[in-house]
């Protein structure tokens, strides 16, 4: 059976076997014990032609309520931000798209330069000294940060604010299981971390205090105060932040963060049902040799020309093996490229505008929605582009009703926090228009009436 993805014809196979000196491909499999051979074809569906496959895939896609067919007010870690049109065209260029990790730098300067640009942009936004080439996603970035804090301080506890995305906490717990690092909570009763309480939890065993801002509920945390609390106990401060907000919000590094991690999906990466995403990871200089992941550095070639290479690799698994700072190998370089092109496109003014518009529209929406009888804002604390709404009816049911009317109403919080079972987390980006917000409000009003 000829496959369009396999070049060898039977004729060529014969010629090649002749050169090899084998009578058949079967002969090349002698090392495989007969009893271990699969005696039958694989039990998967038979090959289908491209047009039939496209029909099948479109049918599957059509069963999903996406942000094109619906007006999206969902967030909680993945946002419907504007994606400039050049990104997809540029990342699709085969030389970027089908290259591997730049092990041969002379033949990979394109990738290396874009990563170097990316590191620069992320460091600038987060207010940190150095950023790496990416981690899988925001959650695994936080997990790596926890392990890095553990290694850097030799301490065994991580204190996480309840304002940190619960999904990130679960991932961090998974990574901390092996090293036996203990996770402790810092309460956030009114939507923001109670730092007074946190201060008491943070102690000599604490490797790091972790907060997120805006946090999972959309509220803004007091980073400077958190830094004080952490540093007072000799712990590091890890801040989870969404870089797309950092055109308007201060870079956590400027407020005392030692490590900044976050989800970079908002920087031009498609939501794609949650992956691939972009794990942002930045730190202070003194931590650089403990950082996980790839780092690209500038150097010179034999003729003294500027060039770029993967550097400080003695941190990494392929050299340090069991003693590596992390096990990461493949990362999400292509998503980092999307973010690089996004940040180049938005630039100094554009990113500020994105933040300003998102905040403005979110606050308009919050005001408008909170006017609906029985609906109110759950928390009083200042928020940025996302907020928790208290509803008079079960959020799950309200959301599914609105879905039928073309709205992705938000994220019901019950599964994340039982005490917020009556809340819907609503996110508003710069893409939402006043008209869409008003229509959403009208629909919600009916749905909860």
């Amino acid at each position: 059976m000829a496959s369009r993805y396999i070049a060898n014809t039977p004729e060529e196979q014969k010629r090649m076997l002749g050169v090899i000196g084998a009578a058949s491909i079967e002969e090349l499999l002698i090392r495989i014990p007969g009893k271990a051979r699969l005696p039958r074809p694989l039990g998967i569906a038979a090959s289908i032609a491209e047009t039939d496959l496209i029909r099948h895939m479109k049918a599957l896609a059509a069963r999903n309520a996406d942000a094109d067919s619906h007006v999206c007010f969902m967030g909680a870690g993945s946002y419907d931000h504007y994606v400039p049109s050049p990104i997809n065209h540029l990342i699709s260029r085969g030389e970027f798209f089908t290259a591997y990790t730049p092990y041969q730098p002379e033949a990979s300067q394109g990738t290396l330069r874009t990563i170097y640009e990316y590191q620069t942009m992320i460091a600038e936004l987060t207010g940190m000294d150095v950023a790496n080439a990416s981690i899988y996603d925001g959650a695994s970035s936080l997990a790596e940060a926890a392990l890095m804090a553990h290694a850097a301080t030799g301490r065994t506890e991580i204190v996480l604010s309840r304002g940190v995305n619960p999904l990130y906490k679960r991932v961090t717990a998974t990574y901390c299981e092996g090293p036996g690092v203990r996770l402790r909570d810092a309460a956030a009763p009114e939507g923001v971390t109670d730092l007074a309480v946190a201060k008491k939890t943070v102690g000599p065993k604490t490797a790091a205090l972790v907060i997120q801002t805006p946090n999972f509920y959309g509220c803004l945390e007091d980073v400077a105060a958190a830094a004080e609390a952490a540093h007072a106990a000799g712990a590091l401060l890890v801040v989870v932040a969404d870089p797309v907000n950092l055109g308007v919000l201060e870079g956590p590094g400027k407020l005392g963060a030692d490590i900044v991690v976050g989800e970079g999906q908002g920087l031009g990466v498609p939501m794609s049902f949650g992956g691939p995403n972009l794990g942002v990871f930045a730190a202070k200089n003194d931590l650089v040799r403990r950082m996980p992941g790839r780092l690209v550095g500038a150097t010179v070639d034999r003729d003294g020309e500027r060039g770029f290479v993967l550097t400080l690799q003695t941190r990494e698994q392929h050299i340090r093996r069991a003693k590596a700072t992390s096990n990461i190998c493949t990362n999400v370089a292509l998503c980092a490229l999307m973010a690089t092109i996004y940040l180049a496109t938005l630039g100094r003014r554009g990113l500020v505008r994105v933040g300003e518009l998102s905040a403005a529209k979110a606050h308009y929406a919050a005001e408008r929605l909170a006017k609906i009888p029985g609906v109110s804002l759950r928390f009083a604390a200042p928020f940025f582009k996302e907020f928790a709404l208290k509803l008079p009816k079960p959020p799950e049911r309200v959301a599914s009703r609105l879905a039928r009317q073309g709205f992705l109403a938000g994220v019901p919080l019950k599964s994340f926090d039982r005490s917020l079972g009556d809340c819907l987390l609503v996110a508003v980006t710069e893409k939402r228009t006043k008209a869409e917000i008003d229509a959403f409000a009208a629909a919600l009003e009916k749905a909860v009436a």
Partner: protein
Amino acid sequence: MGAGAYDKLIFELSSPGREAFSLAGADVPEADVRKILPEKHLRRDAPALPEVSEFDVVRHYSRLSRMNYGVDTHFYPLGSCTMKYNPKINEDMARLPGFARLHPLAAEAVAQGALQLMHELARDLAEIAGMDAVSLQPAAGAQGELAGVLMIRAYHQSRGEKRTKVLVPDSAHGTNPASTAIAGYEVVEVKSLPNGEVDLDVLARVLDTDVAAFMITVPNTLGMFEPRIVEITELCHAKGVQVYMDGANLNAILGITRPGDLGFDVCHFNLHKTFTTPHGGGGPGAGPVGVKAHLEPFLPVPVVTKDGDEYALDWKRPKSIGKLQAFWGNFGMLVRAYTYIRTMGPDGLRSVSDNAILNANYIMKRLEKDYDVAVAGPCMHECVLSARRQKKLGVTATDIAKRLLDLGFYAPSTYFPLIVEEALMIEPTETEAKETLDAFCDAMIQIARETETNAAVIHDAPVTTPVRRLDQTKAAREPNLRWTPRA
């Protein structure tokens, strides 16, 4: 121009006031953040990002791309990385709005298509590997390894066993020991036989009740199938030791043999190797992990389940090791792999491995006179050569790699596996044509000749690339990890 002549970074194109973005003005009453948000949270001054036009962006990144070799433009025999053709239809499917624009927290009822795709892909991967269950959540092979070892750990704990060590051959990929260490185990390196095979005597000696797992790669990193693999897994099981298979080399055995049938308890898949999802200059990938039934309770949450025609995410799994990334896996990559598997079918996948093996053996045969072969063939999907003969004449594996760049080929993996001196690990994949393999072999043979007659041209290489050999030492000694305006 040789795109090489281009030496700009995006920041160096910046001109104050230029704009490449397109954003509508505010349509809501209050748009001034200073009025909306407390001062203390606000950035003092705008971030120092470039200010360029859209055309600046397009031309800059188009030009940078031309400074790369990619599979679309160059033969890329990077051993262990399975740099095969990435079908364009995969890209079209992954970009369907119903997939690319789907929010991860969309209610199950309005994400049935995505959940069905994941359920079917997991089922297919389980069948391909002879495993009972598969989690699609790991973002890459290394994370699949971590998940696998953590499941083994949870399994032993659930049986009240405190095992502390994991055995890893000295030929293993670096992520194996690294993942194992993160999972909280002491890594015990097991010396391989000179031919790269597991030394059963050594193994028998180190296998004790402290050992939680033996983690090996099949075919191994020398491209050889472990002939006594079944004995090995039986030997381990006899000692209550779980056996993990690093599935990075799965491209060699599709439809021929299955990890599960070989006795493995766990194995991961690299969809970005075997299943044609693009590497994108380093990632993203996807590293699903498959397990036998006894490990199923420990799978990461959530698990995609099917009940009648309804698909759902099952979170109620008390024994689960937890989560590995925030959401469900690298879905965009899953769509591509699913598209590929549907395109190939059982016969197609089988012929993938047949031809991957044929191509590797063909290269090995054509080069065996001019280079030392690490292990006598037949090999599986890749072959490892040693440049030790050339080394004696002052030409290293690195030199050969650089010269290949000038001759129009990306380089094989070098210095991996560590147990082979001056290793050149060559993986052609099934998607390459004989004439390409011949051109590559001719180039390799030419380099072997040049080693004897004209080593200078090798030491000078590369000269056709945008830059020549780069100073790695300077890069590490004086780290320059972000751009700053040239004074």
